[in-house]
Each structure stands twice: as C-alpha cells, then as structure tokens.
C-alpha cells in the first residue's frame, strides 16, 4: 500500500515538473491533467471519495478542456 502511494506521489511530482518544463503548451496541459488525476487517486486512498470525485471531474476533465480551448485561441508554443 505504502509503495503504491509513494510511486503515485513520485509520478505526480514528475508530471508537475514536466508541466513546468514543456515548451509545447498542449503537452504541459496534459501533464497538469495527470497531476490532477493522480491527486484524485490519492484522495481516494486517503478515504476522501467526495473530494476525489470533485478533483477528477473538475481538475482532470473540465479545466483541461478549458485550457485546450484557450490554447487553440492563442499560440501553442511558449517562447
């Protein structure tokens, strides 16, 4: 159990750093979506299913979609 949680946290950190480093903004948004998704799984492991559902539906689905729509309107690559 503790190994799974630690692996998830390490994966979450890697995705968060990747979201900062990527110059392609679509990739950065997908990495941020991954952070939200892993956070939802961790909330579930911490026995907070209500928060996990909110995080998965808002953080991983809607916010990602809104960011992608905004990027489509502006530039895709960071300078």
């Amino acid at each position, binding site marked *: 159990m503790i190994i799974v949680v630690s692996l998830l946290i390490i994966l979450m950190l890697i995705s968060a750093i990747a979201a900062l480093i990527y110059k392609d903004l679509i990739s950065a948004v997908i990495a941020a979506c991954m952070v939200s998704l892993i956070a939802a799984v961790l909330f579930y492991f911490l026995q907070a299913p209500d928060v996990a559902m*909110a995080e998965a539906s808002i953080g991983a689905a809607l916010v990602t979609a809104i960011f992608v729509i905004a990027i489509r309107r502006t530039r895709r690559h960071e300078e």
Partner: protein
Amino acid sequence: MRKIIGIILLIIICWGIILALHKIPFGIPKTKVGEYYIDKGREETGAANIVTSVVVNYRGFDTLGEVTILFLAAIGLGAVLSNFKEKGKRKIELASLILKTGCRFLFPLILLFGAYIFIHGHLTPGGGFQGGAIIASAFLLVYLGCRGRIFNEVGCKITESLSGLVFIVMGLIGLTVGGHYFLSNFMLTGQINTLFSAGIIPIIYIAIGLKVGSELTGVIDNLMEKS
C-alpha cells in the same frame, strides 16, 4: 539580481510559515465541532453521508456562497467573451462516424451518472458540485463529437435561475417554519439510508447539481462558440 531577491523573499516567507506552524500540534483535535458532527450528524440530519450533512445542513450558508461565486465567475466570462464576434460562418469540421456514434451512445449514460451522483448525494459519496461537473463534461463531449448541434441557451439560463431560486426559497421556508434560522432542516428526516430521507438535503442537492451543471455548460458553450 532579481533571482537573489526572489530567493531571499522565499526564505523569509518560509521562515514565517514555519514559525507559525511549529506551535500547532499535529494529530491532536483542538476543536470539538468535528467530533460533534461525527457523533450526532447522522441522527440530527438523517443523511448517511456525513460530508453531505456538513456541506448542506450545518454549513449550508457557505454552500450558497460557493454557488454564488461560481455564478459570478460564469457571468464574468460571458461579459469578457461578449466582445468577440460569433463565428457563425466558420466551416465546421464534422467528426467521423465512429466518433459521432460513440458520443451519441455515451452522452445519455454520462448524464444519467451525473444525475445519480447528485440525487444520491446524501447516501453515497458525491453531491451537487460533482454531479454538475459530470453533466457539464457530458455536454463537452457533445461539443467535441457532434459539432453543429444548436444548443438551447435559454433553457440553460432558465434551469440555472430556477434551481438557484429553489435553494433560496428552501432557505427562507426554513427561516419561517423550522428551526428559525436560514436553511434549517424543516422536513422530516425519515428512515436513514433510504432515498427519501434527510429532509431538505436531497432537494437542495438536486438544485445545486442542476445549477452547477447548467452554469458550467454555459461556460463551455461560451468558450466553444465565441472563440
């Protein structure tokens, strides 16, 4: 030079936070209100899910504030995007047959799941906000898969206003009839763990779910159509 100033500021802020936090004992409950909710919440409100009993019953006024914040955010987005012209004549790229059929198949199922989440908010994990977000993601799927469908904006606004009105009216009835405070539980709590229980909690959660769902759908509609 700027980096050095940033690092110094960061160290000062960290020092302040550590100074503030190290006096708080971790793991020791300092307030009795949490224990009270866990012990008495089920009998007092009749909701099997203690989180729901706190969110809607004990802290119902805060929930009204959250719904209002979301409403203001949606209005602000609409006001900002109203300057853009609607690109009605843009050539819409239609999705392939497989994607279209898949979206048509999945849309009612996701809608049903969202409705289940907020109707059963007092029994199972979840509630109005989660169910509303799931309903909005179903509409997002329609926007991505079946472009060119005309979205009923007026119906969305009417649903949103009516559900907000239901929330306020239930609170005002509680003010006059029940425990004489705003959003008091004036209906019978009934048998615990059944669908028709917990008094006003299911009604308010259905109102919140419809309100959040229609608001987020309006946000997605604004973004997809005007940008």
